[in-house]
């Protein structure tokens, strides 16, 4: 990664070509791993490996190659680890979804399941769209600071996207009890919240860069900690109210926690004031406790939240109804043990929604503690690379945006994986890059594209890239 970027030198000399090919090896390795996973799945589920087993890996490889080339042209200094790492997660997700398709198909019809069929095929298509989106972002936005020009637009769009499912009728917006969707007919649905996350964060970053002086300096001292003035609390309380409304009207604790955590952490990064973290945590846990108390006493819109907490406390108390999903997930994880049953050798379909919220538990049955730990390390790698870009980039907007995005990704991983492994109450979140769902995949690839863009700016040596 310390290699000399050769984009400016021009010409297609042999050393140049070799150097470019060397940059591909991580991506190739990732796709070889996905290919191996696909082969193991076929061996375990069909008793033989079909000659075209590697097809999904090949298609994915070509798609990511395009992104790689786009990144090499438009962001030559970008962090070279990000694309291969995310590509591996994305590829394993497609492979696992294909494995679920195979399990759902009758044994005699398994060999007829082609690359673009089923959930796996759908996810493959979405990967194509997501990567196209990421490439477009890299192509058209050559400097991340351009984003701040549209900050107010993005902020407004973000709030509309968040609120839209709540105000739309349940028939259009509700799936499995959570009002997070906009459904177009029966086949196509998007989760606007996934995009709202990015838009709101861009706005937060812009707003906080403008206001950080005020928020950081004007304060009152209380018990040795600087607390902000009452009127500066305004925007924080607005976001808090917004996230509580998400919790209540969209019945979704995860998204609410995510928005609020995202905001508080960017606020903290901007102001360097611990007091914001304390206020944020108090507000969130206060709100959550209040919601739980209301759920236990008043029920109504809070009831589903109360049930989730009860299930978290003891999933086996009602193992066939409310606790079914979580207990089956835990049983799957436990059955997998240290090494797992092997790709394609478990019974992930015992867990409802295994393609979605519970994909981590489903994979855990087959790849075991060791495999899941590797996945965690991949996520950690992406998050820490994002934070590193934030640390090294020179402008405040870039720092806040990259830091906020990286943290949000890490928090989302924590919220969903902590939920399915019974560390915290389960909330409806997608597992970034793994679980089936186009909105999440597209939004998270856009997030990666922004991180790429900022890391390019961060790593460009002074004087080579002009004003970067």
């Amino acid at each position: 990664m310390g290699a000399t970027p050769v984009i400016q030198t021009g010409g297609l000399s042999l050393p140049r070509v070799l150097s470019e090919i060397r940059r591909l090896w991580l991506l190739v390795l990732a796709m070889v791993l996905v290919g191996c996973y696909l082969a193991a799945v076929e061996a375990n589920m069909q008793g033989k490996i079909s000659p075209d087993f590697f097809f999904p890996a090949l298609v994915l490889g070509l798609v990511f190659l395009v992104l790689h080339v786009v990144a090499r042209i438009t962001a030559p200094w970008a962090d070279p680890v990000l694309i291969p790492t995310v590509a591996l997660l994305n590829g394993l997700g497609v492979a696992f979804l294909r494995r679920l398709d195979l399990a759902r198909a009758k044994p005699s019809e398994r060999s007829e399941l082609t690359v673009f069929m089923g959930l796996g095929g759908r996810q493959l298509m979405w990967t194509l769209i997501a990567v196209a989106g990421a490439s477009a972002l890299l192509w058209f936005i050559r400097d991340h600071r351009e984003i701040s020009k549209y900050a107010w637009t993005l902020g407004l769009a973000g709030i509309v996207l968040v609120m839209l499912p709540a105000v739309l009728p349940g028939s259009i917006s509700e799936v499995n009890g959570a009002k997070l969707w906009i459904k177009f007919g029966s086949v196509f649905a998007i989760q606007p919240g996934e995009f709202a996350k990015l838009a709101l964060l861009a706005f937060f970053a812009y707003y906080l860069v403008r206001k950080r002086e005020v928020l950081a300096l004007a304060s009152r001292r209380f018990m040795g900690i600087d607390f902000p003035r009452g009127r500066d609390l305004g925007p924080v309380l607005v976001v808090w109210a917004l996230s509580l409304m998400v919790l209540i009207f969209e019945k979704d604790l995860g998204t609410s926690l995510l928005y609020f955590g995202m905001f508080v952490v960017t606020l903290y990064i901007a102001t360097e004031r611990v007091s914001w973290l304390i206020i944020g945590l108090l507000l969130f846990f206060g709100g959550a406790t209040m919601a739980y108390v209301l759920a236990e006493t008043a029920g109504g819109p809070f009831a589903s939240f109360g049930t989730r907490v009860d299930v978290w406390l003891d999933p086996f108390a009602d193992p066939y109804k409310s606790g079914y999903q979580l207990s089956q997930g835990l049983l799957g994880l436990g059955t997998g043990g240290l090494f797992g049953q092997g790709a394609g050798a478990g019974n992930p379909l015992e867990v409802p929604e295994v393609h979605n919220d519970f994909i981590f538990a489903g994979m855990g049955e087959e790849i075991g503690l060791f495999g899941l730990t590797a996945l965690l390390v991949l996520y950690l790698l992406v998050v820490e690379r994002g934070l590193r870009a934030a640390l090294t980039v020179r402008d405040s907007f870039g720092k806040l945006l990259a830091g906020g995005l990286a943290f949000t990704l890490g928090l989302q991983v924590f919220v969903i994986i902590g939920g399915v492994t019974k560390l915290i109450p389960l909330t409806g979140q997608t597992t970034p890059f793994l679980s089936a769902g186009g909105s999440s995949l597209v939004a998270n690839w856009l997030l990666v594209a922004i991180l790429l863009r900022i890391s390019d700016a961060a790593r460009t040596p002074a004087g080579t890239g002009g004003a970067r």
Partner: protein
Amino acid sequence: MNSPLRKVGVVILVLFGLLFANLNWVQAYKADEYRNSPYNSRVRLDEYKRQRGAVILANGTQVAVSVATEDELKYLRTYPAKEMYAHLLGYKPVNIGPTGIEASENEFLAGTSDKLFGDRFRDIFTGEQTAGGNILLTISPTAQEKAFTELANNRVGATKGAVVALDPTTGAVKAMVSMPSFDPNALSSHDTNAAQKVYNDLLANADKPLNNRAVSEIEEPGSVMKVVIAAAGLESLGLQPDSAIQGGATYQAPGTTHKIPNSTGVVCADSISLQQALTVSCNTAFAKLAVDLGAQRVTDVATKFGWYQRDLAVGRLDGKGIARGATVAEGTLGELRTSSGGDDKPALALSGIGQRDVRISPMQGAMIAATVANYGKQMRPYLVQQQVGPDLTTIHYRAAPQVLQDSCSRETAGSLQQMMINVVQEGTGKNARIDGYQVGGKTGTAETGDDEETHGWFVGFALKDGQPIAATAVFLENAGKGGSAEAARIAGQVMRGMIADRAGK
């Protein structure tokens, strides 16, 4: 802003550390608990991923076989012979505990037995799921078919009963039927709700079709007991078949006013030979003989013929068997002594003719006949001839017949054979005769005490030139008049079936 960014990095590390620690908790510490949780259906699914082995007969017939399906459960257990083999095979439903051979040989059939470790080890490398092992039964197909159909179509209208047939020289079970039967296919259905409903209905059925009456129920043997009393007389009183003993129209045991009569139509002289007393089934003679023998000798001889036997598994000779509660229901005599320790003579008199508290299972009845046929050597009954590997060639177990006990001397057994052959030739067991074979036996008609009809019994054997060929017991519950004669006829048919299969080999 770099300082808070670094702290955020630390927070992320802590959060991921918590995830990692929690995963260790779930997948390592709690793994065994979750894996074996009653809510975990994966173990069951795994069981159905591998083809369960077949249960086969000597002629190659598969009586329990798993066939591939398109379901989530990949193999369906089927029983092509339906009701005919239901009790000895048992059943292997999805959600209900297995019974019979399916339960006792479960590990070998499922392929999880240590004996099949080699196959499992190979599977790791080939990636295949080699089927489970196969079980070869001792059952004679023709005898089993005869036993099932003749019992079901009995001519006295009995609705409950059992048949057991043994090879006297080895103890191999050649037929085992319990009536009424059931179709195990309905229980092994992958529609678990339907299977559960069938199961509940069978459990609720007053006739108890799930019970294997051949091994798990004990009943009054009636006059079958006279064979054992005769054996005791021969062994310990020095009697011979032609020795004269006291008979008469009634017998009144010392210490009671109750007079034991003979059955209607039985003519029993005041002085009668032991053989004739057995042939006409003279109650008075055997009641008196039992009193003369005393509690000690009756108990000793009965124990030698299989009473109080608690370790008959009827499966493999070195392992588990099909009997519910792991062993064949124990035969009992009841209390034959008074509270002061002396002989309870009225009790002995009634017990001598198989009434009062004397109880045996049909299996024990067959074992008594087999012991007489096998010259006093009682063989341990077994049902599993071989455990055959998935490749159908490797034999992991081969039955080696075991002597259970020496029940009586060869001479006594010879005398008993002669007397029992006379019963079939001249007496109550004529229906059991087979041309070219020396068939011996003893009928029994047991009073059931209540207002119910009597039980009909026949225990018997077939010899060919002194060589034991077959032994059988037929029990017809509440069969009423003619029950024992019908039992003798069925026994004859079952033994013909055994003879036919022997000839075919």
